[in-house]
């Protein structure tokens, strides 16, 4: 990743990171309410029987490295939806 990643670049990086952790998931990442803000939706059977906390933790864990530090490319996730279908 370059020093100044584009928004589309960050979205793709987030998507690949989530897919790596949850293979086969249907992942959509879009812009949120400002620079570095994103909205994420993940559909996967893996969330079956998991609480909202466990489901979100799984997704956030996959992209946590992109949210670390003050100059992180991902500043905030405005909305994270996890569904099983």
């Amino acid at each position, binding site marked *: 990743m370059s020093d100044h990643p584009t928004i589309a670049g960050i979205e793709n990086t987030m998507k690949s990171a989530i897919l790596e952790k949850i293979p086969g998931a249907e992942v959509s990442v879009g812009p949120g309410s400002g620079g570095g803000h994103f909205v994420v939706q993940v559909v996967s059977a893996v969330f079956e029987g998991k609480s909202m906390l466990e489901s979100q933790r799984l997704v956030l864990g996959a992209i946590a490295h992109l949210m670390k530090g003050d100059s992180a490319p991902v500043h905030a*996730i405005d909305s994270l939806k996890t569904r099983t279908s």
Partner: protein
Amino acid sequence: MPLTDQQRQQFDDLVKKSRVVLFMKGNKHFPQCGFSAQVIGILKETGVPFETVNVLSDPAVRDGIKEYSSWPTIPQLYVDGEFLGGCDIVKEMHAAGDLQKKLGVVDKPVAPPKITLDERAAKAIKEADEGGTSPPEHLRLEIGPQFQYELYFGPKQAGDIEVVVSGLTVLFDKTSAKRADGINIMWVDTPDGGAFKIENPNEPARVKSLTAPELKKWIDDKKSFELFDVRGEDERAVAKIDQARALDEAGEKHLLGLDKKTAIVFQCHHGMRSKSAAERFLTEGFTNVFNLEGGIEAWSTKVDSKVPRY
């Protein structure tokens, strides 16, 4: 970086320093991030006592709590030493009543707010509703802690309060419902085609804006209100609105003698000076204060071209 046993122990103690502990940016009086502010709003609404930890004042806590909770964002809410989640989860748990159960407070049922919707607003909403979505979407109105309004179509959620008005279903989450009793949703003309306008009696008093055509309508309708011109005699000699009383010494005396609920409109040349005057009288306790947007300039161009522009 993994936490040392000692750091882990410190967090074990920190999350239990009170039954309810919120790790946030800022403190409960001055949240410094919108997500933290939302959770504060919800906690205050439940009425439970809670402690906050400002992660901005200590980088070790800021990074450490993310590691400790395996959760990369702030805010983070702990109840009885157990991590509940971030803003999204707290909001959803609150709407569904699960947060109240966790906190051991009674989830008081919220009465459906009484709302009205004018014909044009209802028409605009019906036209915008494309329908046929799955799950079916309804009109939702969210009202934020500073009375920011968001009107949009979305699916029904657990804990929603449903109000049917003018043949339309409007959904509110509980907190919004409490802020919505008595609101009036209207559709008004604007230079770019029109917009929703919401009148809400629960809002703290603030200066409301009035357009020149709206003022004209008030005059024509013989609505009860007072109009004050904050400009000096020199400018008033050039151009004035007939009904406007000068806010000179006599004018101010008259104003201060009025009932505090009287509708009062302030006007100047372009709407800036009158805005400051309006704000000043708000602090005097007047609650129904308006600013004529664009001042006498807007009056000349939109209502009465006989009033000279200068």
